[in-house]
């Protein structure tokens, strides 16, 4: 009973997050990066000012955590082709040049910190491997483009 009472505000916060923030983001890859950026590097706690004001900080944190895990599993279930398309949308909507983003992503692998804490390890490996492959495919296409105009 107690758990059910607690679940209602988390669901409400989750719906609010979905409606006000996540639906305005261009693709699942960008949603994942955004949600991961709301997590504190040291504590692993999630924080979102607007959501915390409308609900409570702990409820907002839980809603962000759930959304993060959900988007992560959605992305991990994509085929490689779909993930390459996600990467294209992400790069198209980035304020940086696609070549720069690609270079940094391949070098620093910042997408590693976008993985939620409590996820299935095999799925986490699949995700990392697929992003690495999607980046390589994207770069290959870019290199081929001038040769085949």
């Amino acid at each position, binding site marked *: 009973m107690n758990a059910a009472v607690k679940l209602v505000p988390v669901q409400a916060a989750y719906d609010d997050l979905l409606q006000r923030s996540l639906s305005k983001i261009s693709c699942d890859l960008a949603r994942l990066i955004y949600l991961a950026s709301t997590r504190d590097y040291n504590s692993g706690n999630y924080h979102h000012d607007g959501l915390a004001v409308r609900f409570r900080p702990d409820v907002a944190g839980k809603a962000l955590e759930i959304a993060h895990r959900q988007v992560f599993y959605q992305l991990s279930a994509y*085929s490689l082709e779909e993930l390459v398309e996600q990467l294209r949308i992400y790069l198209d909507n980035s304020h940086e040049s696609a070549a720069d983003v690609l270079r940094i992503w391949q070098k620093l692998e910042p997408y590693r910190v976008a993985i939620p804490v409590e996820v299935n390890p095999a799925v986490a490996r699949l995700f990392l491997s697929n992003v690495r492959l999607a980046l390589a495919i994207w770069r290959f296409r870019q290199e081929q483009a001038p040769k085949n105009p």
Partner: protein
Amino acid sequence: MIGIPTALLLGTILLLLLLFVAARGSMDARESSSRSDVPLLDDEAVIDPCPPEFVARIFSPRDWEFVSETKSPQLEKLFRRERKLVALAWVHQTSLAVRRIMREHTQAARHSHDLQFATESKLVLLYAELMFLCGMLFLAIQSAGPERVRGLAVYAGTLSQRLAQAQHDLKAITAGREFHSAS
């Protein structure tokens, strides 16, 4: 017709072979897993079997078809290496999850007063089958590649889910009985 001693001998050899394949597969998968990029899972970690839709994804031939359309030998090589590592990590995780489930079950069974022989035998057989499949999958992934063993992997994934569910149900039944006997 073969005699009983011959059948026993053949059975023992087969059992030893299965145990060897399972142990070898698990050891090699652990070694490969430690070379991969996510920290190695230890035996004590609470790991659940991987959800079935991801097992199908890991072993899906669709991604391979997509990569081969690029006609780039480098990309094809990268894909084979990456997917093989993920598949081996999955085998390792599955075998860890299966062992953890059986360990938990054995501990619970020690304190149980109403063990059912048929149920216990089914669980042990399921466990043996899964460990054998993990060993076989390891060898098959190494030699043939993940996309060629999809059916076997999906079957092993389904079995591991079934074992986890059976253990979960037994736990619930035992807890229910203990609750009733205490009240």
